[in-house]
């Protein structure tokens, strides 16, 4: 450890000064002369045929520069998933039919907001209203309104309607497993519809100039945005430049191609002027992509000692009007089931169901908080039924280091057992557990535990990241990385790694990021792998530049390069430290004597190099990750049994996130995820009726405020094994930690009150209902 100077430490954020002074530029801050204002016309109906669409009055309004519908597009579809089994399924504007309230039908560009709004109101549309369906179970019935035909591969096997996709997986034989079990439980769990809650609204400004499209947009990866824009606009990739901007929060909600991004681009191409479209908050709540509610049926068989023998799981999602990430979340629910515990026999089925809701997106954790809530709640119930404590049952089933997972992956230095042990010890878990219910008074305290595992950096376009390190004449590096800083701190992390590998100061590192013309491709901030994948590309690039400088110094001194070392922008002879040459002089020497070669280091990293792509979403076959992170989280809650109100008093997160490049940034991720999970647990739900959103503002959709802040402690179980020779064995820490803590909160409420809640959020109504039911039962 002692030889590390910049990684494993917590220098302040590279983007910090810009963000505290108002200089950081976000999409909404881009100003271009002559900019037109774009607006989107959205469907007022959940399901309707468009019978007539007349733009003439809108086009005639002075100040209106262009109006587009699907007829002005190339008709090229896109999708969150684009595979042979799940080809792109959504057009950028509705064609002939709308399948959810808020679906995009037309877009206008005008000289100001008011005229753009007036133009929308002048577009004449006649609809033929069609029957709609909102509940996935209803939508699966054979007589349900058909939104899209069930997937052809599913149709032959299952009688259900509106099935967008299916995941089936398993091993062993669950029937035999249940027969061999001493105890079997079946439970059903549900989660609610939540939104991401990024503070920065979606904003895009597009400018078509000199046959090239320039785009500034709120995203989670500019490589992906460029690919989807180029494809749907039918432009070469090289004709589309997605510029760097800071992004004001994403949490999964800014990955996909959004219709407004396409429309801004297309309108600019038609008008030859910059076009800006900013989504208002009401539209984001009502028509943009939220996360996914899941219904989860779980049957688990265990031995008397709590050893899991068999598990059968069925997950049904509500994917909205197109496939979106619906077919991914049902795959991921399998994955997040598989990671933490040994399950000798598993049968898993996930169904993605179309409904007349807006399309769904990934949301921090992407299925993990839902499925871990279900499994961990049931496991606590099993433990209670068998008289085992929550710590012991988890230790009994937790995976050991270096275990092989059923999908062929290895968990490597999995620290799960250490996490559970440390969490139990630090929280004094067993001493506090079981006390709440026995106390008198109306305020009951409870403690609960959950565990989780998360993958890091799977293979999906563009699969890997490249980084370039250019040495400047003064001996400082300029780093070109496609890695986008959405708040997680990637610019800081990448700078630390380059500083470490090159022996320069953090402040010496100039970073240019996430500009598709200037920077290499990057996996983006959405597949839980940027520190690992882009970080290792940065390590290689800096190492490559370092090697080139060492080679030049070796030439200059005429000694074996292996005798040379670096420190503080100087190369020196290990055997004779007085023989030294600064980076500046190396570069000058190189220019003077070696054809003027400049020094540029290149690095590229791709996880699971020999794997062609991500695993099958339908069968789960194929490698998923080489980087599994683990956590055990403990929640302490207070429940008022008179009002049913509960709050998270204290959270403890013990995690194995691999080597923490910047521990203070890791802590920021932990605290933010605990906060998001308590919103999930207690506050947040997008409520709807007939497809209309009833609470499209932050006044009515309650996100945690500073009053809900919980005490959040964290610790890692990173042992020397990570520090010796592999400081870049970094793992996921940005989204998996919303999961076990959610389950822990549910378990803590049960510890406090005896009320086992099977659906989120844990509202006062549900808790009170449970408390009263228990009171009635105890009287009989």
């Amino acid at each position, binding site marked *: 450890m002692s030889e590390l100077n910049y990684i494993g430490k917590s220098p302040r954020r590279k983007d910090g000064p810009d963000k505290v002074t108002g200089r950081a530029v976000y999409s909404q801050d881009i100003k271009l002369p002559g900019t037109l204002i774009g607006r989107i016309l959205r469907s007022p109906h959940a399901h309707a045929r468009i019978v007539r669409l007349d733009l003439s009055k809108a086009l005639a309004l002075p100040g209106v520069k262009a109006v587009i519908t699907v007829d002005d597009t190339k008709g090229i579809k896109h999708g969150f998933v684009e595979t042979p089994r799940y080809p792109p399924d959504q057009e950028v504007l509705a064609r002939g039919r709308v399948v959810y309230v808020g679906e995009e039908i037309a877009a206008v560009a005008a000289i100001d907001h008011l005229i753009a709004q007036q133009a929308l109101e002048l577009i004449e549309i006649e609809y033929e209203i069609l029957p709609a369906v909102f509940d996935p179970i209803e939508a699966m019935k054979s007589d349900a309104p058909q939104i899209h035909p069930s997937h052809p591969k599913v149709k032959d096997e299952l009688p259900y309607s509106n099935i967008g996709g299916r995941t089936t997986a398993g091993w062993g034989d669950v029937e035999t497993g249940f027969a061999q079990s001493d105890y079997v439980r079946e439970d059903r769990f549900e989660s609610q519809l939540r939104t991401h809650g990024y503070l920065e609204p979606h904003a895009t400004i597009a400018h078509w100039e000199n046959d090239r499209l320039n785009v500034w947009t709120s995203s989670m990866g500019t490589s992906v945005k460029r690919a989807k824009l180029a494809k749907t606009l039918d432009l070469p990739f090289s004709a589309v430049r997605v510029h760097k901007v800071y992004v004001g929060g994403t949490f999964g909600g800014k990955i996909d191609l959004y219709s407004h991004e396409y429309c801004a681009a297309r309108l600019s191409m038609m008008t030859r002027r910059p076009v800006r479209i900013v989504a208002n908050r009401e539209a984001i709540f009502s028509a943009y992509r939220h996360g996914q509610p899941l219904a989860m049926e779980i049957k688990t068989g265990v031995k008397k000692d709590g050893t899991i023998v068999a598990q059968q799981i069925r997950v049904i999602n509500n994917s909205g009007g197109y496939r979106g990430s619906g077919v991914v979340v049902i795959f991921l629910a399998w994955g997040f089931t598989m990671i933490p515990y040994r399950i000798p026999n598993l049968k898993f089925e996930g169904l993605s169901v179309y409904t007349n809701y807006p399309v769904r997106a990934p949301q921090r954790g992407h299925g993990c908080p839902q499925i871990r809530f279900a499994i961990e709640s049931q496991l606590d119930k099993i433990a209670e039924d068998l008289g085992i404590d929550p710590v012991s049952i988890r230790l009994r089933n937790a995976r050991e280091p270096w275990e092989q997972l059923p999908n062929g992956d290895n968990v490597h230095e999995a620290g799960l057992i250490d996490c559970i042990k440390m969490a139990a010890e630090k929280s004094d878990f067993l001493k506090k557990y079981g006390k709440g219910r026995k106390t008198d008074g109306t305020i009951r305290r409870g403690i609960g535990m959950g565990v989780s595992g998360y993958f890091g950096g799977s293979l999906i376009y563009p699969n890997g990241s490249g980084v370039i390190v250019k040495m400047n004449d003064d001996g400082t590096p300029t780093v070109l990385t496609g890695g986008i800083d959405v708040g997680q701190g990637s610019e800081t992390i990448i700078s630390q790694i380059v500083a470490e590998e090159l022996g320069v100061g953090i402040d010496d590192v100039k970073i240019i990021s996430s500009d598709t013309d200037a920077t290499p491709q990057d996996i983006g901030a959405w597949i839980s792998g940027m520190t690992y994948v882009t970080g290792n590309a940065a390590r290689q690039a800096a190492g490559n530049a370092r090697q080139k400088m060492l080679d030049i110094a070796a030439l200059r001194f005429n000694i074996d390069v292996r005798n040379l070392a670096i420190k503080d922008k100087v190369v020196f002879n290990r055997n004779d430290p007085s023989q030294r040459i600064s980076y500046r002089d190396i570069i000058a020497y190189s220019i003077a004597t070696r054809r003027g070669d400049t020094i540029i280091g290149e690095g590229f990293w791709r996880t699971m190099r020999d794997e062609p792509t991500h695993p099958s979403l339908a069968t789960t076959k194929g490698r998923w990750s080489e980087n599994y992170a683990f956590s055990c989280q403990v929640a302490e809650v207070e429940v008022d049994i008179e009002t049913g109100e509960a709050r998270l008093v204290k959270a403890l997160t013990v995690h194995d996130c691999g080597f923490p490049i910047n521990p203070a940034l890791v802590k920021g991720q932990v605290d933010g995820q605990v906060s998001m999970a308590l919103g999930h647990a207690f506050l947040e739900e997008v409520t709807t009726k007939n497809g209309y959103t009833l609470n499209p503002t932050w006044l009515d959709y309650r996100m945690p405020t500073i009053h809900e*802040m919980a005490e959040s402690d964290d610790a890692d179980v990173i042992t020397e094994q990570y520090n010796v020779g592999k400081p870049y064995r970094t793992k996921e820490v940005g989204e998996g930690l919303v999961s076990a803590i959610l389950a822990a909160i549910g378990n803590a409420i049960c510890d406090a009150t005896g009320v086992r809640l099977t659906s989120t959020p844990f509202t006062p109504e549900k808790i009170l209902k449970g408390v009263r039911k228990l009171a009635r039962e105890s009287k009989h």
Partner: protein
Amino acid sequence: MADRNHNSKSMSRVVAIEVNGEHHEVTVKPRHMLVEVLREKIGLTGTKEGCEQGVCGACTVLLDGRPILACITLAVECDGKKIRTVEGLASGETLSAIQEAFLDQGAMQCGFCTSGMLMSATALLEKNPKPSLAEIKKALEGNLCRCTGYNGIVDAIRQASGEGVDPIFMR
């Protein structure tokens, strides 16, 4: 229709405001909000628009020292008033104590709430240099942050108020 056209051409008036110590005279319509004037006319884009509904607090600026929501404050109401925005917190390259504390405590991730948070925190500390935890929470209850869970923000204010909270980041 006709009314709206009339509205979009409705009489403008000149508003004189002092922003971060600089005098500006701007022509505004009666419907223009302060946030539009700051961002679009004066060019200070550090003040953010998160909801345009007066709920998220990202647009918080100080009006004669008091935190207000610029997205629901009419520009014409600000005639003759002094406004401070995030761009006015540092003196030259020297950051204010609360700006430094935000960097030290990880009080900011995506940064979109940061300007508003800093303005609410600045107003609090100028009025009450040693706020209690309850007073900190009260002062910042109108500012949403989705990234940090607020822990770092509270610690930053406590650091800036001299509570002896150690930085978690290194300078």
